[in-house]
């Protein structure tokens, strides 16, 4: 039995290491389509399920399941699952706000992602194993970045899930002005991954001997370059905060001035990212920028009563004047009166308006309808672009409270390693803690906890961070 447990542990370690690389690298090709949504089950879901299944067997065979269940973090995780189930039950049978199979699958997604955390904590037992995973992750980051550059400069294929048609697994190419997504199927997801990456790399940089630092500089620089190419403002901001936290917690305050200068230079250097930041201030903050007024009275009336289910004016006389399309192509074809004419400003304007007027009110309405349990997973459509509001809307105060308990416990545990005498452990835990904060900041404008690739990686990384607590205390004993 001991031998079997030993081999199972080894197998699980290599399977987990493989998952660390497979999730970011394998494009989002659908495997099994689900009726009623364009989110599909993919190979990585099966891989993670297999790993979790084997891990549960390992817990039983190694007789560690009792300690596992007594653990506060495990209890918080299971409380979160229990409330998720109660909320799903209430959504199906009481509020009637979900399609049962979709809600249940969304619930299972959360289980799948979060269980990766205890899995990694249990499986990674030696410093050598931590280093192996870090090396695999570094190679993965390199591959992700090189592929992103390939999409931009060599026209390498793009797999995207940004709409229902693309999510069927179509092979696309980047249009001029489009943003790279590498293997992440969405530029926001790639940017979140890079924000996590840069934060951890900054911490690891200080832990390494000088001869290895060049590798980290190259990886970090490449990641930063690709992050700028994604032009994702929120992730850039999260990266800045994440790196600043690393410098503060690792007591490297002399680097802060250098870091501030670098940030200012990046923001001043002409790029899509800079243009989008300027547009944010122009359009969202000061409400400036030239606006489209509409060509006809019909357009102006419709823009005031913008209900997509109502009849559209289609008479032959009005057809030519009702279309919003600009024959010259200088103005977006789907622009409506009141929107900015400049295409960058238009993108920034819509990005915020869709959150402010559609997604966030929808989540708030769900929360008002059932403040204690929410209206269930999948009840507020596929995106809310704010994880706190999404959580309150879907699982209410109870579910959100349980999720916060998980983060508090994880944060407290990682924080304990800040005093470790082992430099790598100490700085890696600083990196993971700062990454967690940066990730949650990203969650204020993007659904990071539901975006499958980055969410899985997030829980894997937290698991690795918690594993350092175990490694650090066993070393210091």
């Amino acid at each position, binding site marked *: 039995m001991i031998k079997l447990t030993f081999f199972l542990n080894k197998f699980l370690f290599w399977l987990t290491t493989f998952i660390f690389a497979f999730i970011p690298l394998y494009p989002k090709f659908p495997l099994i389509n689900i009726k009623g949504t364009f989110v599909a089950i993919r190979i990585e879901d099966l891989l993670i399920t297999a790993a979790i299944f084997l891990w549960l067997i390992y817990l039983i065979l190694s007789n560690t399941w009792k300690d596992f269940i007594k653990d*506060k973090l495990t209890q*918080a995780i299971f409380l979160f699952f*229990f409330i998720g189930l*109660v909320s799903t039950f209430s959504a199906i049978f*009481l509020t009637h706000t979900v399609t049962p199979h979709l809600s249940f699958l969304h619930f299972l997604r959360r289980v799948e992602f979060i269980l990766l955390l205890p899995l990694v904590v249990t499986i990674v037992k030696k410093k050598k194993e931590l280093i192996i995973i870090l090396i695999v992750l570094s190679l993965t980051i390199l591959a992700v970045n090189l592929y992103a550059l390939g999409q931009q400069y060599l026209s390498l294929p793009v797999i995207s899930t940004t709409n229902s048609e693309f999510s069927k697994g179509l092979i696309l190419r980047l249009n001029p002005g489009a943003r790279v997504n590498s293997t992440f199927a969405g530029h926001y997801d790639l940017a979140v991954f890079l924000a996590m990456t840069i934060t951890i790399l900054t911490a690891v940089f200080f832990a390494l001997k000088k001869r290895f630092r060049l590798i980290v500089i190259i990886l970090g620089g490449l990641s930063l370059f690709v992050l700028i190419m994604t032009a994702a403002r929120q992730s850039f901001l999260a990266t800045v905060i994440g790196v600043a936290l690393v410098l503060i917690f690792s007591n490297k305050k002399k680097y802060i001035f250098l870091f501030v200068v670098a940030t200012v230079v990046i923001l001043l250097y002409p790029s899509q990212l800079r243009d989008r930041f300027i547009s944010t201030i122009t359009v969202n903050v000061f409400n400036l920028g030239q606006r489209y007024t509409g060509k006809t009275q019909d357009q102006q009336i419709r823009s005031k009563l913008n209900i997509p289910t109502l009849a559209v*004016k289609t008479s032959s006389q009005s057809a030519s004047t009702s279309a919003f399309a600009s024959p010259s192509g200088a103005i977006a074809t789907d622009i409506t009166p009141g929107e900015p004419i400049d295409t960058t400003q238009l993108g920034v304007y819509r990005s915020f308006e869709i959150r402010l007027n559609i997604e966030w009110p929808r989540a708030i309405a769900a929360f*008002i309808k059932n403040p204690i*349990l929410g209206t269930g997973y999948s009840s507020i459509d596929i995106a809310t672009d704010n994880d706190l509001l999404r959580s309150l809307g879907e699982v209410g105060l109870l579910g959100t409270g349980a999720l916060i308990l998980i983060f*508090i416990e994880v944060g407290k545990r990682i924080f304990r390693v800040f005093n470790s005498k082992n430099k790598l452990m100490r700085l890696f835990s600083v990196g993971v803690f700062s990454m967690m904060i940066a990730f949650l900041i990203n969650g204020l404008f993007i659904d990071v906890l539901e975006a499958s690739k980055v969410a899985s990686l997030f829980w894997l990384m937290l698991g690795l961070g918690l594993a350092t607590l175990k490694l650090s205390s066993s070393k210091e004993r």
Partner: protein
Amino acid sequence: MKFFFIIFSSLLLVYMLWPGPSKISDFKPLPLSDKSNLEGDTTQIPNVSAYFSNNFRESVVPFYFSNYQNLSHLPFPPLQINHPPEYSWIAIKKHTDSTYLEELVYPLRDSIYVNGFEPFYSSGSPKFWGATVFVVKDKSWFTKTTLRFYPSNLVIKFFVWLGISLSILFMYHLGRKIIFSND
């Protein structure tokens, strides 16, 4: 703390199981209206009814607001949620025309959606291209109001209450351990 939990939990159970409306026919018809017999407004979809009238949103929603509270016999009114009109395709039924959709809800109990299709302003001027009046039995009306009631089942409510009470209990004990202990 135990005392507060027992009080809260008992009050929640009473609130959830308190008798209220159980079907759409419990609600009053709109004043001075003609009940729709069109397909989809009668028996095809459960708990739906619709009325043609000259009542506009300003009077329709308050009418059902007070009707719902009276039927629920509760000392406080339902919550009022304003939904985007296109949500009527989900909340009422597909292809429901809509210019407003409001939900009146008693959380953890039941809710009624009030959907209005008003092609004209109350002044009589059209709101959009193609606006026409509704002609029913030689009478013409300016608005159509469609209601859909989502009732709840006592057994389901009991299980949800049980789930909530257990969750609060677990969260209280675990929260204390996580927030206040340093081990």
